[in-house]
């Protein structure tokens, strides 16, 4: 450490002397060397794919990468048409289909069902678990309509909404089979649908965005031409809209951060011309750092996407400190000496402060969760490049600024700042204690992914009309890929056995066997159909008033069962399109649907654990899908999160200890940080703000940002011979400005529509406020108490 000190001073002095001699050469050289970085930064992409957050060895991520092309990630588009004139509607759908089929991004377009095939086999095409559900429903109806029985099947612990959803799904299914139509349409035929499968999944965002624009254009054209209502929907839309929301959030947060920082700087410097001097080294540092992103981590993920804005807020501090000091030095010294003195004093402090912030961030790189590790790598790396830019580009630009009149000598505004009364310190101490109690009793982790997504304005009209044509859950939560029919049957067998267990979270499976059952299942289906028909023979059915239910009861009662099932080869292509590999390899897909919420993390973990526990044949590949990805993210975050926080804290402790070489001094130094973090968690607990997989990363980041306050305050207090008033007078302004500018970087996130990122903004701002409070209100009280106690002991 002692050797590093003089070495660093020599480097700083050398750069400052050379920069002051040849400022323009340094300026141009730095700019020229930065040109490749400009190219690198154009290559940065935002990747909102959640698999991006998982490590390479994660089963969910590796299957997703391997099977993406085969499963097309289950994504699809739909176009919904509504009109009163049936002929006009059909003409519109035919002409739209012809146009959509021509698009190179489109794999298949369907708007008709294989009517003759379905008409012939009808109820035999309903899988056994659905038939069982229909049978249960009939028993429920019997119980409901008989004066001596009570329906027990519907009154489970499930929510009414879930029971209603299941019942609606059953009604839709029965409606479909009892009112067969050739077209994808609503019951009254006024709304029709078109199902579009793209070649590329959502991972290829450009192709998806391009296809969406083309479909929108075609749909709008059809709407005008045929004077009907049209809209583009489907699973890909939700992904695209979330992506676009994040991009809009990025823009908005950036503008808010930049504006607020500009305002703070204008107030602080009262000069517009000083702004380029402040922004130049900072901008260069960020440019260098982010130009390396495509090379080092390929692209930005959901969590690192906002780092640019955050780092801007953090990095501007370094420029502020250097410029203020340079202006002060210029009052009494020539520019070269002022520059050297600035860099030897404030420059060194900035470097040390930057390193203490960067180290905890670098510690995050040990995490398997890329949301953490890449946040740490990019964040820590960017701080280092910003420091480098301050060191390499800063001195020459300060000199140029001085020569061009952009930087003028200026003394700092020194206003008398009063020490906070002890009462305030006691109050903050009480708050910290209450915060600890609240944290231990109330702090929760939010497992619900629904609370973390983008708040995309819902297209209610489209959703409603879409639901009248297509069932609500068309994409399975997990998919297996099977090489042949034998493996499909063997996998189906083990999955269905698991599904029959009482604690299973699997609701149903979908495969080509739904339409081409084997002999065993055909017998089971026929038995169920006979049982249902038998139950429906009772005169109780007369009491049903709902014409829809009456219709399917009548249809089912009178249907003459076909006794032979269709074979796989007999199936029409439109039925098999979503159940076969999308790469034309002839492999089979097996989709698994959960009976629990898809986006609730805890339930996703149980579902995935269940799937991972099934002993599937070795030839089967998967499962791949959104729920295994959610589950693995949560397993990683919840298992690594506490360790990462502990390691970061240990790292910070070690760094402080290396700096002061005293265990006691280290403890006093970290008090504001620990108190601030406890207070933050306490306020979060009381206000209902939960930790989640997005915002956990902020806790170690806060440690890096917050430790500076304690280090500066304690060190300066000792340097000033434990003069509390003087220490406070000197540090209140700079530490408050630092907190404010860092907060400005995060404040834009509070206005994000993406709830996860919004929570990062809220917790970071809250944390910075709490650490400011414990550093500048609690810390003086504690140090005063120590001082008084020491003085009393000495006097005794």
């Amino acid at each position: 450490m002692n050797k590093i000190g003089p070495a660093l001073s020599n480097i700083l002095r050398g750069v400052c002397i050379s920069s002051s001699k040849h400022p323009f050469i340094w300026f141009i050289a730095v700019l020229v060397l930065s040109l490749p970085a400009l190219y690198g930064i154009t290559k940065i992409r935002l990747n909102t794919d959640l698999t991006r957050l998982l490590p390479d060895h994660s089963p969910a991520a590796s299957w997703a990468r391997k099977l993406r092309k085969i499963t097309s990630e289950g994504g699809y588009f739909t176009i919904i048409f509504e009109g009163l004139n049936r002929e006009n509607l059909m003409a519109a759908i035919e002409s739209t289909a012809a146009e959509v089929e021509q698009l190179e991004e489109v794999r298949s377009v369907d708007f008709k069902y294989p009517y003759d095939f379905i008409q012939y086999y009808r109820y035999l095409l309903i899988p056994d678990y659905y038939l069982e559900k229909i049978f249960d429903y009939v028993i429920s109806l019997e119980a409901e309509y008989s004066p001596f029985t009570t329906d027990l099947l519907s009154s489970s612990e499930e929510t009414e909404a879930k029971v209603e959803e299941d019942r609606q799904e059953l009604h839709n299914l029965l409606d479909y089979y009892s009112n067969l139509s050739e077209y994808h349409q609503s019951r009254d035929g006024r709304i029709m649908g078109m199902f579009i499968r793209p070649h590329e999944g959502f991972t290829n965002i450009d192709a998806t965005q391009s296809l969406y624009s083309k479909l929108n254009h075609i749909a709008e054209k059809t709407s005008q031409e045929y004077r009907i209502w049209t809209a583009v929907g489907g699973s890909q839309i939700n992904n695209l809209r979330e992506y676009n929301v994040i991009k809009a959030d990025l823009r908005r947060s950036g503008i808010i951060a930049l504006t607020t920082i500009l305002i703070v700087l204008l107030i602080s410097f009262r000069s517009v011309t000083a702004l380029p001097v402040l922004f130049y080294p900072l901008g260069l540092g960020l440019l260098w750092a982010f130009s390396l992103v495509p090379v080092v981590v390929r692209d930005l993920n959901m969590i690192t996407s906002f780092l640019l804005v955050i780092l801007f807020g953090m990095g501007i501090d370094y420029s502020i400190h250097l410029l203020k000091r340079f202006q002060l030095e210029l009052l009494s010294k020539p520019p070269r000496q002022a520059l050297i003195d600035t860099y030897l004093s404030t420059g060194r402090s900035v470097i040390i402060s930057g390193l203490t912030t960067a180290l905890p961030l670098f510690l995050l790189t040990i995490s398997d969760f890329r949301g953490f590790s890449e946040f740490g790598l990019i964040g820590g790396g960017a701080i280092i490049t910003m420091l480098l830019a301050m060191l390499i580009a800063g001195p020459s630009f300060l000199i140029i600024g001085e020569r061009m009149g952009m930087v003028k000598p200026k003394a700092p505004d020194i206003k008398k700042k009063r020490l906070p009364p002890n009462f305030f310190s006691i109050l903050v101490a009480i708050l910290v204690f209450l915060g600890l109690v609240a944290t231990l009793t109330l702090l929760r982790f939010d497992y619900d992914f629904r609370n973390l997504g983008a708040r995309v304005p819902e297209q209610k009209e489209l959703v409603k009309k879409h639901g009248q044509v297509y069932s609500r859950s068309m994409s399975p939560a997990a998919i297996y890929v099977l090489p042949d029919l034998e493996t499909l049957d063997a996998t189906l067998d083990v999955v269905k056995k698991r599904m029959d267990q009482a604690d299973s979270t699997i609701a149903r499976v979908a495969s080509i066997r739904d339409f081409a059952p084997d002999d065993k299942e055909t017998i089971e289906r026929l038995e169920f159909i006979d049982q249902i028909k038998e139950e429906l023979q009772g005169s109780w059915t007369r009491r049903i008033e709902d014409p829809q239910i009456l219709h399917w009861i009548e249809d089912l009662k009178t249907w003459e069962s076909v006794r032979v099932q269709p074979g796989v080869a007999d199936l029409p292509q439109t039925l098999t399109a979503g159940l076969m590999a999308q790469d034309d390899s002839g492999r089979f897909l097996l989709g698994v649907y959960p009976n629990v919420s898809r986006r609730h993390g805890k339930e996703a973990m149980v579902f995935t654990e269940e799937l991972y526990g099934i002993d599937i044949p070795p030839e089967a590949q998967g499962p791949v899908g959104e729920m295994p990805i959610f589950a693995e993210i949560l397993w990683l975050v919840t298992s690594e999160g506490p360790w990462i926080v502990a390691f970061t804290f240990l790292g910070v402790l070690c760094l402080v200890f290396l700096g002061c070489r005293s265990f006691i001094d280290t403890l006093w130094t970290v008090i504001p940080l620990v108190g601030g973090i406890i207070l933050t968690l306490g306020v979060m607990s009381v206000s209902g703000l939960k930790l989640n997989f997005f915002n956990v990363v902020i806790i170690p980041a806060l440690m890096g940002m917050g430790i500076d306050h304690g280090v500066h305050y304690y060190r300066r207090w000792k340097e000033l011979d434990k003069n509390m008033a003087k220490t406070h007078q000197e540090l209140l302004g700079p530490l408050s400005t630092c907190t404010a500018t860092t907060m400005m970087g995060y404040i834009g996130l509070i206005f994000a529509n993406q709830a996860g990122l919004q929570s990062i903004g809220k917790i970071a701002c809250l944390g910075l406020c709490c650490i400011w409070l414990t550093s500048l209100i609690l810390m003086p009280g504690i140090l005063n108490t120590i001082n008084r106690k020491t003085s009393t002991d000495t006097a005794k």
Partner: protein
Amino acid sequence: MKRINSGILILLLGASLSNSQTPLEVIKDSNQKILDIYASHQDISREMEEAIFQIMDSVTDFNTISLRTIERFCRKMSEMECRELDRVFQELLRVSSIKKVGRYRAERFEYLGEDIDGTRALVKTIAYYEDDTYELDYHLELIDNAWKIVNYTADGVDTIRNYRKQFQKILRKESPAQLLTRLENKIQEFRNEESE
């Protein structure tokens, strides 16, 4: 001793009186009493429900209905679980009979005859209410010298068979304790209706 003898005499007399009624008469008698109650009450009230229940309870063997529904499931349960299921299910039968039968009020009954086979009998009826009709079959058994209803078939729905199917379905995926919870919830729902 004299007192005990006279007690036995009264019991025997009561039993022979009860036995003297045919299954059809038992049903007719109880249905008439229920119709009388309907005639004397404009709206469904708690008092009316209670009165109907008293009549139904006197001619229905809830114990047998429960036993025949649950006996096959009891084989896989502990004795305590089975006893508890029997108790709660009988309670549901009683509570639901008050609430549901009260809702299905009839104006008159047509008796299609009785079919007696030893200690078992079937009484077929049609209940009329405004323009609507119900096919209501009473399954009776001679228990302790009296004809008691041991099952109902309403519009083709056999009460014991329906409950058996529901229990079978529930117990395939749930534990006896969960079945009990469902039954208790249902009883509570009926009671809440009462308080409303």
